[in-house]
C-alpha cells in the first residue's frame, strides 16, 4: 500500500433516496492518497450512486462529500482533481484517440503542456500506437485503454474506475492492472468498482462491500477473506451427465446443486476433500468433467457481507 495518510476523498454519512428506496444509507468512507479502494456489491447495491456522489454528479439527501476538502458538487477546484472512467466508453466515437484526449484535457483545464500531457496519458494506458485511429474503428480493449487514458490526462488526484477490466483479454487486463499500479505509486487515490476477484485481490488496499445502500463490511481484502471464510475454499464439481448416486456423495461433503450437474460449496480442507470426492465418484462410475478448488470469489464475499450485516 502506498497511501501516505492524506485523505483525498472523504464521504461522511452519505444518504440518498430514490422515491422510497435508499440507494445510499449512511455511508462513510475515506480514500487516501496512493490507496486503491475497491467497492463491490450486487447490482442495485448503490455502487453507481456512490461513484456519482463521490465525483459531485449527484447531490446527497444527507451527509457530505469532500475531495481534498472541497465540495465537488459546488467547487470547480475539487472537480478538477477528479478523473472518471465510466464502464461505458465515454469518448467521442468520430474522433481519434489523440483528438479525444486533447479535448478532455482542455475541458479539464489543462492549459500548458497539453500535448505532453496527452502523450503521457497515452503512454501510461499503452495506447500510443492507436493515437491516430478513430474510437469507432478500435476494438473493445483499445477503446477501454483510451477511455482510461482520457480519465488520467489531467493527472487527477482521485480516479474513479468503473469495471475497468470487465470483458477484456488477458493482455489488456495486464496493461490496465499495471497502469493502476503506476498510478498508485504516483499517489493517486483510486476508487475501483469491480466484480473481478483478481482485480480486487491483487490491486485493492481495502475493499468495501455495499449491501442495500449500506457499507456492510470494509477492510483489507486478505483480512476480510480470512474473516469471512477462514481456511474454507470453494470446491466445484461438474458432472458429464445426471447421476443419481452423485448427489448423496457430494452432499455429504457439503456441496449443493441447482441443476444436478454442477455442485459447489465453501468447505474446509478443500484440496483433500476434492481428492476424496474424485475417488468416490470414479468408484461409482460417474463421469466427472471438472473438479476445481478456488479461493472464494467476490460473490461469496458479497453474500457473506449481506448475511453479516
Amino acid at each position, binding site marked *: 500500500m502506498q497511501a501516505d495518510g492524506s485523505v483525498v476523498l472523504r464521504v461522511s454519512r452519505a444518504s440518498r433516496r430514490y422515491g422510497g428506496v435508499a440507494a445510499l444509507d449512511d455511508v462513510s468512507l475515506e480514500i487516501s492518497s496512493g490507496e486503491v479502494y475497491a467497492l463491490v456489491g450486487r447490482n442495485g447495491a448503490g455502487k453507481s450512486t456512490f461513484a*456519482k456522489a463521490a*465525483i*459531485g*454528479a*449527484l*447531490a446527497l439527501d444527507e451527509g457530505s462529500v469532500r475531495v481534498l476538502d472541497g465540495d465537488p458538487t459546488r467547487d*470547480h477546484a475539487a*472537480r*478538477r482533481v*477528479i*478523473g*472518471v472512467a*465510466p*464502464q*461505458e*466508453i*465515454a*469518448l*467521442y466515437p*468520430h*474522433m481519434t484517440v489523440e*483528438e479525444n484526449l486533447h*479535448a*478532455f484535457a*482542455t*475541458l*479539464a*483545464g489543462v492549459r500548458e503542456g497539453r500535448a505532453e500531457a496527452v502523450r503521457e496519458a497515452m503512454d501510461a494506458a499503452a495506447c500510443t500506437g492507436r493515437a491516430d485511429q*478513430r474510437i469507432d474503428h478500435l476494438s473493445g480493449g483499445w477503446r477501454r485503454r483510451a477511455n482510461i487514458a*482520457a*480519465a488520467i490526462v489531467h493527472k487527477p488526484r482521485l480516479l474513479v474506475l*468503473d469495471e475497468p477490466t470487465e470483458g477484456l483479454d488477458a493482455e489488456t487486463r495486464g496493461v490496465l492492472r499495471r497502469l493502476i499500479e503506476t498510478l498508485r505509486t504516483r499517489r493517486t487515490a483510486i476508487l475501483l468498482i469491480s466484480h473481478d476477484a483478481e482485480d480486487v485481490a491483487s490491486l485493492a488496499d481495502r475493499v468495501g462491500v455495499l449491501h442495500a445502500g449500506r457499507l456492510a463490511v470494509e477492510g483489507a481484502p486478505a483480512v476480510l477473506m480470512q474473516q469471512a471464510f477462514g481456511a474454507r475454499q470453494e470446491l466445484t464439481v461438474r458432472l458429464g451427465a445426471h447421476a443419481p448416486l452423485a448427489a448423496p456423495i457430494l452432499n455429504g461433503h457439503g456441496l449443493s446443486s441447482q441443476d444436478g450437474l454442477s455442485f459447489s460449496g465453501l468447505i474446509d480442507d478443500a484440496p483433500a476433500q476434492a481428492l476424496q470426492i474424485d475417488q468416490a465418484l470414479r468408484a461409482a462410475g460417474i463421469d466427472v468433467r471438472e473438479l476445481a478448488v478456488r479461493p472464494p470469489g467476490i460473490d461469496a464475499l458479497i453474500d457473506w457481507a449481506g448475511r453479516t450485516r
Partner: protein
Amino acid sequence: MIFVMLRVMALSLWRDKAGLVLAFVLPPVVFIVFASVFGAGASGKLDVRAGVVDQCASAQSRRLTVALGHQLGGRLTAYRDKAALLEAVSSGRVDAGLILTGDLGMTPAPATVLIHPGRRAAGEVLSAQVDAVAAQALPDVMMEREIVRLAPLLALSNTQLIRISHTRTAIPPAPFVTSQVLSGGDPIVVYYAGAVSILFLMFSAMQGAMSLIDERRSGMRLRLGLSVGGVAPLLGGRMLWLIGLGVAQALVLFAVAAVVYRVPLIASLLPWLVTAICAAAASGGIALLLAAACQTREQAQTISTFVILILAAVGGSMAPRFLMPAALQAIGWLTPHAWVIEAYQAVLWRRVVDLRVLEAWLVLAGFGAAGFIGALAIERRRKL
C-alpha cells in the same frame, strides 16, 4: 470550453458523411422541387400538355393550332376525333383538350376546352392561352367576329360588311389591357427557400442536439460534468455550433436560390444573415430543449419528428400559409416557421427591414433563448 465543443461537433459532422448530405445536399434539392412546382405555377409558366381536334380543317384553324403549339412549347398533340381526345383527357395522357368546330370567324363559340375535373387549373390555363394566341395570331379573324357581332347594332348593310371583310387584315385589334411585370424576386420561390430552410434547420439541429443524449447514455456526461465551467459552456458551445451549422445550411440553400431563381441574396446579405442567425438560434434552442427533456434517443427521435412535422405543417413549411384558413394562419404565428418565412420574404422579396422584420427577429431570438435556458435548467436539474 466552448471552442472545444465546437471542434468536437464540427469533427463529428465532418466525419459523418450521411449527416453532411442531410445537412447540405438534401435541403437545396427539396427546395428546388418545391420551387419548381409552386414557383413556376405562380409565375404563369405551368407546363400544360394539351390535345386538339381540328374539325374545321380551315386555313384559320391551322394557323391557330400551329401558334398554340408554339405557345405550349410543342406539348400539343393532334387527335383524329373528339372520342380520341376525350379518352386522352380522361386517362391523363393530356391535361386538357381543345376542339375547334365551325368557322372561326362566324361561329359564336368555335372552340371548346375539355377539362378533367381533377385538372381544372390546367383547363383554365389552356382556355386563357387559346384566347391569347387567337388574339395574337388571328387578329383578322377576331376582328371579323367583332364586326359580325356588332353588325346588327350598327345597322350595316351587306355591301358594307363585304367591303369591311375585304380590308380586315389591315386593322390590328385594340388592346384593352397591358401587363407590366415588376422587378423583384419570385415571392413563392423566396417563400419556399425560407420554408424548406427552417424545416431542415430543425432536423439538423435535432440531430446535433441528440449528442446530449448519447453523452448521457455513454457515461460521458459524468466525465463532462467534471469539466471547467460545468454544464453551461458545454451547452453554450453546442448552441453556438447549431447556430453556425444552421447559417451554413441556409447559406447553401439560398445560394442555390440565388443562382437558379435569381433570389437577390447578395443585395440583401446583411438582413438575410441576421434572419439566418435568428432562425438557426430558434431551431437550435428548440432542439436542445427537446434533447434535454428526453431520456433516450428513441424517445427523442419520436417526439422530435412529431414536433418538427407539426410545426412545419402549421407554420407553412409544407403548404403556403396564404392558402390556409385564417384560424390556422393565426395559429401559425406560434411557430418559428411562420416568422422565418415572414422575415425572409420581407428582406429578400419586399427588400425592406421594417418593424415587422425586427419583430420576427426578436421572436426567433426569443425562441432560441427560451429553448436554451430551458435546456440548461433541465440539464442542471438532472445533475441533482
